[in-house]
């Protein structure tokens, strides 16, 4: 296979909503720089919105070579059809080789629509991106077949090669105040007619769950047995100044809110310590915790897959072990 010489450059979609909490674009810039070095090309961040100056500067500070800005009041609110048409025009003109976005709620809606319009391939929720040394193609690794295996996917014939990546999979580069980049302002017509009308947008209230920044994370799965028994994780988290995460079965059982979901369709975390209790270790879940420095797993099944990735394993009733730990810690702390 040969690289397509008509296409050049790595583009990242600038998903700046909920910045500074949402740092996925910065993480993708960092990964994009690694990929760009191998392809001898540049990283461009595409930024659509209104009054986006601050974000353009942040992206340069974190490593973007180029920021491509379409700044207009009509882009203040996200409209999928407007954004899709606009970005499709930019892609047709500039022809990047690779286009990556965060697998956020926004990216998960926008990127598939864009890929379909461009008739190109899209790998969603990737856990790894690399350049194949021989072909120069983007190798997109994503859990497949219900999470039973990891698939390495390439898009040999269509461009751009598109992928979405979970927040937290890659590390961002540090902020560099002395950085200088290029900024491009395309003269592009913005088509605003669309079939869906935004009536109102409202920020969701409630306590922010900051799993991605927590240095200690306690995760509960179905093995905890009930919502009342799940509460022990919150008690421990308070003591350890940590955050609580959950697997999908625990969330589907109503034991925790979905903002605490970890894994392929949830968040990825890289804490110093992660305690995972009553979780079997399905790949859809463990892809979200593989960045943890130390993992302690608790499960009554000695053959549970979770023990394969744990640094320390405890075989026993998850709630009983956690309750004992809580009792001991309360006496010490």
């Amino acid at each position, binding site marked *: 296979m040969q690289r397509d010489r008509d296409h050049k450059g790595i583009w990242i979609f600038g998903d700046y909503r909920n910045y500074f909490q949402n740092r996925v674009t910065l993480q993708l810039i960092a990964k994009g720089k690694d990929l760009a070095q191998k392809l001898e090309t540049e990283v461009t961040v595409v930024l659509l919105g209104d009054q986006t100056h601050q974000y353009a500067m*942040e992206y340069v*500070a974190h490593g973007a070579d180029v920021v491509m800005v379409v700044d207009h009041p009509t882009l203040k609110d996200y409209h999928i059809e407007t954004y899709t048409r606009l970005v499709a025009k930019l892609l047709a003109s500039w022809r990047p080789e690779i286009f990556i976005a965060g697998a956020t709620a926004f990216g998960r809606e926008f990127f598939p629509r864009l890929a379909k319009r461009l008739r190109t391939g899209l790998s969603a929720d990737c856990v790894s991106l690399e350049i194949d040394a021989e072909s120069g193609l983007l190798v997109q690794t994503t859990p497949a077949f219900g999470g039973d295996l990891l698939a390495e996917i390439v898009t040999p014939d269509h461009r751009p090669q598109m992928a979405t990546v979970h927040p937290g999979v890659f590390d961002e580069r540090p902020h560099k*105040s002395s950085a*200088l980049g*290029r*900024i*491009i*302002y*395309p*003269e592009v017509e913005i088509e605003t007619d669309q079939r869906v009308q935004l009536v109102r947008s409202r920020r969701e209230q409630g306590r922010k769950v900051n799993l991605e920044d927590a240095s200690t994370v306690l995760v509960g799965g179905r093995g905890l047995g009930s919502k009342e028994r799940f509460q022990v994780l919150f008690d421990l988290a308070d003591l350890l100044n940590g955050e609580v995460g959950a697997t999908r079965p625990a969330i589907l059982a109503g034991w925790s809110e979905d903002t605490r979901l970890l894994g392929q369709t949830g968040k990825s975390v890289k804490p110093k310590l992660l305690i995972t209790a009553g979780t079997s270790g399905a790949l859809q879940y463990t892809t979200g915790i593989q960045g943890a420095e130390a993992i302690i797993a608790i499960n009554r099944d000695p053959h549970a897959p979770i023990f394969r990735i744990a640094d320390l394993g405890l075989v026993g009733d998850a709630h009983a072990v956690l309750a004992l730990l809580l009792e001991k810690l309360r006496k010490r702390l």
Partner: protein
Amino acid sequence: MKFRESLISANHNYLVNDMLSPGFVLGDPGPRDDFWFVADVVPPEERRGRIYGRLYDRRGDFILELKGNRTTENPGQTVLQSIQGGFRIHYPSGELLIKVHTRNFANGHLTFIHGKVYDKEGRLRMEPSYEGVKVHGKGQLALVGPYEFGESGH
């Protein structure tokens, strides 16, 4: 597709011709008796825009020289007033000559310049445009580093 291009600094930019720019120059800061204007590059450890210039009114009369946001010559008897984040300068009549103010973000800064500035021939060289300024005539719109003024101090 047509496009415009500039440079962008992570630390500080001005808004000129509807583009971010780390710094820009109008005219030639060399000759003493002529119009020139410098919005200088701001080093990473600083936060405020730095403005230098030799300004004329719409009749082509010399009215003001600015060095580092301070007036050094003021034959037009303009009035410089500090404001939050910057300064503004008025003609004796009260009409605004130029306003410079810096907005601070969490990790960066953006300086906005407003006003109409003329050269020695009374030609308009700078005017308001949306949030920033639109500039006309000879100049350099994206400085890479701090401007190196000549021996004259300009």
